């Protein structure tokens, strides 16, 4: 059976999802404060890395890199509610792209699995 990443469409799915996902993030007052002062082109590249990981694709994320990469955001107040919002936005992005509910749940579970590292707990 095809992997989740293959079912979603691999790198093409990431490229199709990234603009929709990042637009929703920037428009969402719950989380957009964390993205105010970052370069958009660099963010788009980072979001692609995140989506690849969440889609079950190849990635080199480690618990340590997740922790280090979010430490400064935790210091600025990043908490469970923000992670919830990102997972919700991820889900609405995928449903907009016509992804099946079961696959969306699998993506959400992968994103959920890094919550502790992201929040440095």
């Amino acid at each position, binding site marked *: 059976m095809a992997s989740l990443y293959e079912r979603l469409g691999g*790198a093409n799915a*990431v*490229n199709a999802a*990234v*603009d929709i996902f*990042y*637009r929703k993030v*920037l*428009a969402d007052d719950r989380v957009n404060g964390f993205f105010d002062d970052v*370069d*958009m*082109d*660099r963010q*788009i*590249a*980072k*979001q*692609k*890395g*995140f989506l*690849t990981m969440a889609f079950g*694709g*190849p*990635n*080199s*994320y480690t618990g340590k*890199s*997740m922790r*280090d*990469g*979010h430490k400064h955001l935790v210091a600025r107040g990043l908490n469970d509610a923000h992670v919830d919002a*990102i997972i919700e936005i991820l889900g609405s992005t995928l449903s907009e792209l016509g992804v099946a509910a079961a696959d969306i749940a699998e993506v959400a579970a992968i994103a959920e699995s890094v919550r502790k590292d*992201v929040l440095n707990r």
Partner: protein
Amino acid sequence: MAVRISIGDTSFLSQDGESLLDCLSRNGVSVPHSCRSGVCQSCLMQVTAGPAPEAAQIGLKPTLQQQKFVLACQCKSDQDISVAFPGAAGGDLPAVIAGKDRLNHNVLRLYLKPDGDFSCEPGQYLTLINRDGVARSYSVANDPARDGHIELHIRLLKDGLMSGFIEKAGIGEPVTIRGPAGSCFYVRGDGAYPIVLAGTGTGLAPLYGVARQALAHGHTGEIRLLHGALREADLYLVAELQDLALRHPNFHYIPCVLKGEAERFYRAGNIEEITMSILPGDKSRTHLFLCGAPEFVTALKRKAFLGGVASKHIFSDAFLPTKSAPVAA
């Protein structure tokens, strides 16, 4: 079949089925990388000799594709190639000041004659170095390979080291140019999409270059160029741009003056708001070029993206390919 990969002064033989990233890593050349699947773009490199494999360019902006940038992790060449890290490809070239004229009260147009072959896409930038070692970057407003000279727009700053030097320098003064770099330029190909160019101050230079290049290549989509100025006296090249609009029905020149008056040849108001108000209905196909003050570029980039312009179709002067690995979303 083994092929030869050259980088700098060294070269390596790649093994069968090996990616550029693997070949360089195996030989002790450190290449920033992360996902190894052609997504994160951490391992961006440039092919400087030989063809760029198409599969190594999937997902890259068209301007990067045209400059033969590749993702090292996806790059499997069946021919010998030379590669370089982003920004390392252009060398130094001597040049002389060939002419200059005033464009308005604080902008000077400088013509340089390179001593040797220099080609770049109009809209890219180069670094100008004078005899004292002062270095500043300027955007190229013309097509140097076609014209035989380079056109730069220099803003004259009070106590500016480089602009002061240029103001005083005589014809024939030797300088050094380094580059080109940057991915704010026109990509040849299907020329039917709408183009919007918006810039403040001497941000007009690259946009003027991009617009003329698009027209020279028979671009058929609508091209709108907005030049933002604080006062009417800060606009420049007005007659040239109005003339360009007369000669090309699909080219529209929209000068914007923040402290302007109603019913003049320009539009009075903020260039950010005016740009958003004239974005074509077909936003997903529109290519947007932004140059000038960093705050202006950053703010309008975000507004236009939220308004529906695709991130891969937004080109700005400040953009340089990321070199850091994505460690977090």
